[in-house]
C-alpha cells in the first residue's frame, strides 16, 4: 500500500499533487527510453488518462499517448502502469505511478505503440469469416461471447513471454481471433489445424488472463481447444507418461536410488532422448522415497485447521517443501494435515487430455470438499496446483464453482500472510544474514494475489530480498523436457536467466518447482521454495 492511498483513506493527509513518471522516447533520436517526472493535480476519482491529458495540455504537448473512446471500448489507451499492462481510462491515478508503453510492440514514441502490424497474421493465414450464408437458427456457445468481449487492447501481448520470442506466432491476441472463428457456430471448426500449431507455441503461463480488462480469459479457452486437438491427435508414450506425475512418481520413488543414478548416466539419457524425445540436456529432478506426514501432538493455539495439498513434486521429488510447510503451519498453532489426493490434473490439461484431467478434478474436488466441510482450509504451496484448482476446475470441469468453496482455497504464502495480518504468525525469529532473490512464478501471478512470500521474507531479520524477478523461466511444467519444444523453452527463459546471472546472488527463492529446476540448471544458482527460508528462521 502506498502512502498516498493511506493518506486518502484516513482523510488526514489530503494530497493536492501527485508526482508521476512517464517514459519518454523518440526512437531514432533518443538512445533509449528515459523516465521523466511530472507533477499533476490530484482530482477525486481522477484516472490515468486524465493525468496524461493534463500533462499534454498544461505541461508538454510533445508527449505522445493514445486514447480514443475514453472508456474501455477501443483499447487504445493500454499502457504499462507500475509495470502491469492496463487501460489508462479505467485505472485510478495514484501518487508515484510509473507509466510506460506496452512491451513486445514497437514504440512509435513515448507511450504509443504501433498496432498496425496486427493485420499481418490474418492476411498470412487467410483467416476470414467465410460462411456462405447466415443460418436461420444459430445460437452461439458461451465461449464465443466470452471471446468477442476482447477490445484488442493488446495487454495480453505485452505479457506473453512466447510472443516476445516468436512474434510470428501472433500471441494470445491472434489466438483469440482464431478461437472466435473456431467457436462461431456459423462458420467454425475448420480453424483447428491452425489452432493446433498456434497452441504448440503457447507455454500456458496464463499471463494473457492477468491484465485482461474484459476477462476474456483466453488461457482457459485455449485449454478447451487443446482438448479438441487432443481428441483428434491421440497421445505419445512420452506425453502419456509425463501427464501422469503421480504414477511415474510412485514407480520412480519406489526404486529411487536406482532410478536417480540411472537417469544421471549420459548414455541412458541419450537413449531416452532418441526413444522418447525427452531432451537429454535437461536434467531430471531426483526422486525420494519418503512420505509426508505432519508431526503429532503439537499444541493448537488458533482455530485454524489446514489440509495442506501435497502436490506431486512435493510428494516425490521435494518432500522438504511439504515438511517445511507443515512445520511452519504447526509451529504457529495451526492443526495441519497432509492432503494427498493424487495429481491435480495440471499436466493432463496441458496436454489436452481433458478426460483424464476431468477424472482427477472430480476426485480431488470430492476429497477437498469433504475437508472443507470438516472445517479445513485448503493450502497449496505449488502455484500450479493452486491455479488449477482456482481457475481451471470451475471453468473446464464445473467443479469447485461455489464461492464458499473457492474462498477456502489458499496459496501458502497468501495464507501465512493472512495469519500475519491476524496477528497469528510468530515473527520473533532468528536472524538470517543473507541476500537473496525471489522469482515470482507465472502461475502465482495468474492468481492475482501479488507476491505474499516477498512480504513474508521481509519479516525475517537480516534477510534482504534484493531482487524480485517476474519473467517466465520457460520450463512451463514439462514443456522444457520435450525435445521439439526445447528451443522455445530456452529462448523464453533466457532473459530471466540473464537477469538472475546479472544480480550475482547465490540463492533464488521461488514457489514453483519448474522455476527452481530451470534456475539451478541454467543460471547455476541454488533455488529453493521460500518456505525453506521461513522454516530456517523459525528454528
Amino acid at each position: 500500500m502506498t502512502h498516498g492511498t493511506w493518506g486518502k483513506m484516513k482523510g488526514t493527509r489530503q494530497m493536492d499533487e501527485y508526482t508521476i513518471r512517464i517514459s519518454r522516447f523518440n526512437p531514432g533520436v533518443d538512445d533509449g527510453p528515459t523516465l521523466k517526472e511530472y507533477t499533476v493535480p490530484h482530482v477525486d476519482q481522477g484516472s490515468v488518462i486524465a493525468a496524461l491529458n493534463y500533462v499534454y495540455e498544461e505541461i508538454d504537448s510533445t508527449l505522445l499517448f493514445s486514447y480514443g473512446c475514453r472508456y474501455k471500448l477501443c483499447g487504445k489507451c493500454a499502457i504499462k502502469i507500475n509495470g502491469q499492462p492496463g487501460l489508462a481510462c479505467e485505472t485510478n491515478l495514484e501518487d508515484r505511478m510509473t507509466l510506460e508503453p506496452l512491451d513486445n510492440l514497437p514504440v512509435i514514441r513515448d507511450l504509443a505503440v504501433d498496432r498496425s502490424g496486427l493485420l499481418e497474421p490474418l492476411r498470412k493465414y487467410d483467416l476470414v469469416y467465410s460462411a456462405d450464408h447466415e443460418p436461420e437458427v444459430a445460437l452461439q456457445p458461451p465461449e464465443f461471447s466470452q471471446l468477442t468481449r476482447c477490445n484488442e487492447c493488446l495487454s495480453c501481448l505485452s505479457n506473453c513471454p512466447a510472443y516476445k520470442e516468436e512474434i510470428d506466432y501472433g500471441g494470445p491476441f491472434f489466438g483469440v481471433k482464431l478461437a472466435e472463428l473456431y467457436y462461431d457456430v456459423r462458420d467454425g471448426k475448420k480453424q483447428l489445424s491452425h489452432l493446433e500449431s498456434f497452441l504448440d507455441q503457447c507455454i500456458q503461463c496464463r499471463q494473457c488472463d492477468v491484465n485482461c480488462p474484459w476477462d476474456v480469459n483466453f488461457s482457459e479457452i485455449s485449454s478447451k481447444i487443446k482438448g479438441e486437438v487432443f481428441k483428434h491427435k491421440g497421445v505419445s508414450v512420452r506425453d502419456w507418461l509425463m501427464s501422469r506425475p503421480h504414477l511415474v512418481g510412485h514407480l520412480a520413488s519406489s526404486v529411487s536410488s536406482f532410478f536417480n543414478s540411472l537417469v544421471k548416466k549420459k548414455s541412458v539419457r541419450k537413449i531416452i532422448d532418441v526413444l522418447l524425445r525427452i531432451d537429454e540436456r535437461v536434467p531430471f529432478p531426483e526422486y525420494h522415497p519418503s512420505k509426508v506426514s505432519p508431526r503429532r501432538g503439537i499444541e493448537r493455539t488458533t482455530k485454524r485447521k489446514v489440509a495442506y495439498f501435497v502436490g506431486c513434486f512435493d510428494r516425490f521429488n521435494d518432500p522438504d517443501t511439504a515438511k517445511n510447510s507443515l512445520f511452519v503451519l504447526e509451529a504457529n498453532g495451526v492443526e495441519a494435515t497432509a492432503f494427498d489426493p493424487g495429481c491435480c490434473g495440471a499436466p493432463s490439461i496441458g496436454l489436452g487430455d481433458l478426460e483424464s484431467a476431468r477424472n482427477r478434478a472430480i476426485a480431488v474436488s470430492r476429497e477437498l470438499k469433504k475437508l472443507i466441510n470438516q472445517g479445513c482450509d485448503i493450502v497449496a504451496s505449488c502455484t500450479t496446483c493452486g491455479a488449477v484448482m482456482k481457475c481451471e476446475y470451475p471453468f473446464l470441469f464445473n467443479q469447485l464453482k461455489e464461492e464458499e468453496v473457492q474462498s477456502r482455497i489458499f496459496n501458502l504464502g497468501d495464507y501465512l500472510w493472512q495469519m500475519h495480518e491476524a496477528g497469528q504468525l510468530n515473527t520473533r525469529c532468528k536472524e538470517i544474514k543473507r541476500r537473496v532473490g525471489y522469482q515470482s512464478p507465472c502461475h502465482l501471478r495468474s492468481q492475482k494475489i501479488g507476491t505474499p512470500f516477498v512480504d513474508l521474507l521481509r519479516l525475517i531479520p537480516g534477510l534482504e530480498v534484493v531482487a524480485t524477478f517476474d519473467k517466465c523461466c520457460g520450463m512451463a511444467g514439462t514443456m522444457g523436457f520435450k525435445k521439439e519444444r526445447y528451443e522455445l523453452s530456452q529462448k523464453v527463459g533466457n532473459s530471466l536467466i540473464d537477469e538472475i546471472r546479472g544480480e550475482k546472488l547465490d540463492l533464488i527463492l521461488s514457489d514453483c518447482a519448474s522455476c527452481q529446476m530451470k534456475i539451478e540448471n541454467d543460471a547455476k544458482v541454488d533455488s529453493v521454495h521460500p518456505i525453506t527460508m521461513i522454516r530456517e528462521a523459525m528454528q
Partner: protein
Amino acid sequence: MTKEFDFDVIVLGAGGAGCAAAITAARNGTSVALVSKEGIGMGNTRMSGGEMSSSGVVDGDSAEVLKQDMIRGGEYLNNGHLVDIIARNASSAIRFVQGLGHYFRRDEEGRFSGKAASRLGGHSFPRSFGGLAASIAHALRNAVANTKSISVFEDTLVTTLFREGDEIRGALGVDLKTSECVVLKAKATVLATGGCGWLYYPQTTNNRTATGEGYAIAFEAGVQLVDMEMVQFFPFAMNHPSHLAGTLLDEPILAGPKGKLINELGEVIADHDINKMTRAQVTALMAKEISAGRATEWGGLKLDLSGNLDVPEMLEFKKVRDEVNFFEKVRIAYGEKAFNWKEPWDVSPSSHYMMGGVKIDPHGHSSMKNLYAIGEAAGGAMGANRLGSTSIADIFVTGIAAGKEMSTWIKAREKGKISNSLISREVEKIEKLFGQKGPQRPIKLKRELQKLMGENVGIVRDGERLSSALSHIDRMEEEVENALFVSSIRRYNTEFLDAVELKNMLTCARMIATCALERKESRGAHLRLDYPDKDDAHWLKNIIIQNKEGKMETSFSEKDISEI
C-alpha cells in the same frame, strides 16, 4: 518526401461506412485505398450501442413504416429519397454485416425474430438488432485485411481534396508516423469521415477523432453541405467524474415505462413513457430545465429508474446490458445502489451525431463530380433528429450503395490529372506547419473552441450567443493562421495533428453556428430560446451552405413534399 499512389477509388475514413464502401468496390473489381486517421474500425462505429435497424421483422412492420417513423422522428426535414433507400435496404445491409462475421443478437431459440429486436424511441415496432459494436469493427477490419485489392493507409490524416476544375481527383494525406505526405490520385473519392462530436468535448459521446475532417475539406473544395445546424445531443450520457464526462449511457429506452427525470429542486420533470420518446424530445425536455438553472451540481438531471424494478421487460433489459458490463460507469461514478437502479443518478445530454453533412443524391454523389459522401459525413437523411439504430443501418446501406454505383462506371473512365503546382502548393502548406513558432499551442485553442461550442452553440441556442460565437470564431481563425506553435518532431506529431484538426473544427463550428443563426425556429435537435416554436410555414426547408470564392454562403432548398 512525398509519395504518390494511383487508385480507382480512395475511401477516406474506415468506420462502418468507409469499410463497407471499400469492400464493396473492391469486390466489384476496382482498386481501392482505404485511408484512416486511426486504425481500421477504430472510430465511432466501434463505440456505438451496436444496435442496427432492420427494414422490419414483425407483422405490420415494413420499410415503408420505418421510413415514416424516420421522417416523423426527423420532424419532416429529411430528404425522403435518402430515407427511402435506407429503409428499403436496412435488412440486406444487416445480412452484409453478418456475412463479414458479425453476430447480431438472436432470440432464445437462436432465431432472428422480433423477440430479439428492441423497440427504440420513435420506432413503431421492435426492429433494432443488437450486438457488440466492437465486434462489428473487428469483422470489418478482418474483411478489409482479407480483401486483396484494398490498400490500407492507417494513421494517415487527409488534409485536402485535390480539385481541378469542377471535379475532385484525389486527396493529400499525411502519414502521421513519419509526417511524410501521401498523394492519393483517384477516379472517385469517398468521404466516410464521420461526424464532428469532438467539437463539444468533453460533453460528447464520440471518439476523439470525430473532428469533422470530411465536412471541412469538402467545404474548402466548394462542395455543398446541408442541415449543418442539426447536431444531435444524446439525452442519457455521463457528466461525472471528469474523465467519464460525456460518454454514452443508453437510448431513451433506458428510462423504461416508469423512469423519472428529476431536477435539482426535486421536481419530477417526466414520470412515464420517456422510453417512447425520441432522443430530440428527451433532450429538449432536459435542456429546458438545465437552461432555466435547475440542473444538478454536475450540470444534468437525476434519472430515477427505481420504478422499473417491477417491470419484467426492464429487468430483462438490464440483464442483457449487464452481461457486457454496459453500465459499469454508473457503478464507478455513483456506486452499487445507483447501478442497481435503487438510487437515482445524474445524466446529461451529450453531443452524439451530426444530422447535417455533405449534400448527396441517392447514390451518395455530392455536388462535386467524382466526390461521394456516405454515413455520417453525408447529410440530409436524418432531418432534424435521428432515431436510434438508424445510423448503423445508414452507414452500411450508403457504403454498399456507393461502392456498387462507382464500380459500374469507374473502369471505363480515364483518370484526370492533378497538376504538380497544385500538389506542391498543398504539400508546402503542410511542411510550413512543422516547427512553427507562434505563441499559441493548438490544444489550448481546441479546448477554447470546445468550450465556446458547448456554451454558445450547444443544446439550446439564441441569436445573441450564436452571433457572439461567430465573432469569437473569427478571432480564433486569425490566430490559427498566424500564431500556432508546432514542434518539428516527425514521428507522430500531435501538435501538428491538433493544428490541422483545429482548423477543420473551426470551419465546422462556423458552418454550424451560421446555419443555426439562420434557422429562426425550434425543430428537432435545433432549439432556439428566441424562436421556441416550430414554424412549418416558413421553415420546412433545408439550409445549404457552401464556400463560394472564399466566402461562406447559405441558400435554401424547399421541401418536395411528394417525396415524403
